[in-house]
């Protein structure tokens, strides 16, 4: 068995197409997860105790089970409860729900980390709850949570590989199909590792850039 790069190059258009699906699902899933996670965190914080508990259960369930199992149940189990989704939709939905559970916990930690005094100061100058959330809490949290948000988003990229089990035509599926067909596993998975790593590095670099831009907003010493 040789390390046959020509094989990979000849299938490059297919690989690039699959990479497109991966990136699209990753970005869409992360953005939707961040938004849904925020909604969950806000409901848990400002809603009644019942709402908090009602949302705690699904969040814990998602965090407590492997993504692979969730995706499998959603795609193959969905039809039993009348939820027949094509693989890409199921993949995106699964990724969003999975991400939302983790992102909601990050948002929650952000709410806790903001000094109470900053919110009291907003109250004292007359900002109402919504204005305080939009003008004070959200920007402060963005600054506080950026490193952990980037970290979670990196994990989201790697979780897209799991979607190959429900035959989402993403990168891992495309490359492992090549492997099976031409018995070129090493080449394929080496390329996979490199591509995921490159994407992760790009994402981290963007995060570092944003962090450096935000550094002057850091909390002041008192």
């Amino acid at each position, binding site marked *: 068995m040789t390390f046959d790069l020509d094989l990979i190059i000849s299938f490059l258009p297919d690989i690039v197409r699959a990479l497109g699906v991966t990136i699209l699902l990753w970005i869409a899933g992360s953005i939707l997860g961040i938004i849904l996670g925020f909604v969950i965190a806000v409901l848990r914080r400002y809603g009644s105790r019942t709402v908090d508990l009602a949302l705690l259960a699904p969040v814990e369930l998602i965090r407590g089970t492997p993504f692979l199992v969730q995706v499998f149940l959603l795609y193959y189990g969905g039809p039993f409860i009348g939820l027949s989704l094509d693989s890409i939709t199921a993949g995106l939905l699964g990724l969003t729900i999975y991400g939302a559970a983790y992102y909601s916990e990050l948002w929650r930690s952000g709410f806790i980390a903001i000094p109470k005094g900053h919110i*009291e*100061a907003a109250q004292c100058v*007359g900002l109402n709850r919504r204005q305080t959330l939009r*003008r004070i809490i959200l*920007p*402060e949290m963005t600054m506080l949570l950026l490193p952990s948000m980037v970290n979670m988003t990196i994990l989201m990229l790697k979780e897209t590989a799991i979607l190959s089990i429900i035959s989402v035509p993403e990168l891992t599926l495309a490359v492992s199909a090549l492997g099976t067909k031409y018995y070129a596993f090493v080449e394929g998975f080496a390329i996979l590792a490199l591509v995921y790593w490159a994407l992760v590095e790009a994402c981290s670099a963007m995060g570092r850039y944003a962090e450096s831009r935000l550094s*002057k907003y850091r909390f002041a010493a*008192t």
Partner: protein
Amino acid sequence: MTDTPAIKVEKLVKRFGKNTVLDGIDLIVPRGQVTCLIGPSGSGKSTLLRCIALLEEANEGFIEIDGEPLGFSSGDFGERNRLPAAQTRKVRSRIGMVFQQFNLWPHMTALGNVAEALVTVRGMARKDAEERAMAQLSNVGLRERAGHYPSELSGGQQQRVAIARALALDPGIMLFDEPTSSLDPELTGEVLNVMRDLAQSGMTMLVVTHEIGFAASVGSKIVFLDHGKKIVEGKPDEVFGKPRHERIEQFLDTYLDRGAATLL
């Protein structure tokens, strides 16, 4: 109307669980004067201030601002009726608050901190709000620091920005909660000077402070609290002059090593 005090507190009780922090406080804050609340830690002075700023809700009693009830009105039988939120917001907007920890918003410049409520709450155009904010920053001597973020300012500068932020909304009353307690002695002076100027301009001020020197020289009225009760109240020379109340005597002893004794 001229006789209506700026703040009137009646039989205020505040409990945290089983702990009674304010035990039936009566307080009059006259208009255009500086009233200083002093007392040992845990005496309830900060809690009293926070109740007046509505950051805490008292369990019993009433607060009036310029003769208008704050938060609750008194019914025919002395029962408390909660007032509509709009009314409470209106009364509360006459009060400016300055915190021990400054509490500037870290993602906004000094100018942004001062202009924020003018834009978001008062609906002013950003440009007009910043013009007014700039004037306030000039008043506290920070015009050239307007573009700095809180993390780029010293504690004293941050506190002066916080004072400008409160003043920008044109409050009739300013509350100060230990405004210099988290500052180095060197930076305390610049904040106290701003407060002194403010007092001279005729602002009604209620100041919780450990700066006995400031209280004695700027305060027109001193209120000494201990264990949630008002122990002594009067003009500085009545409270600090001899013969002193026994509890004041003990309290002042703890300040001897802080240089305050020479003032008294």
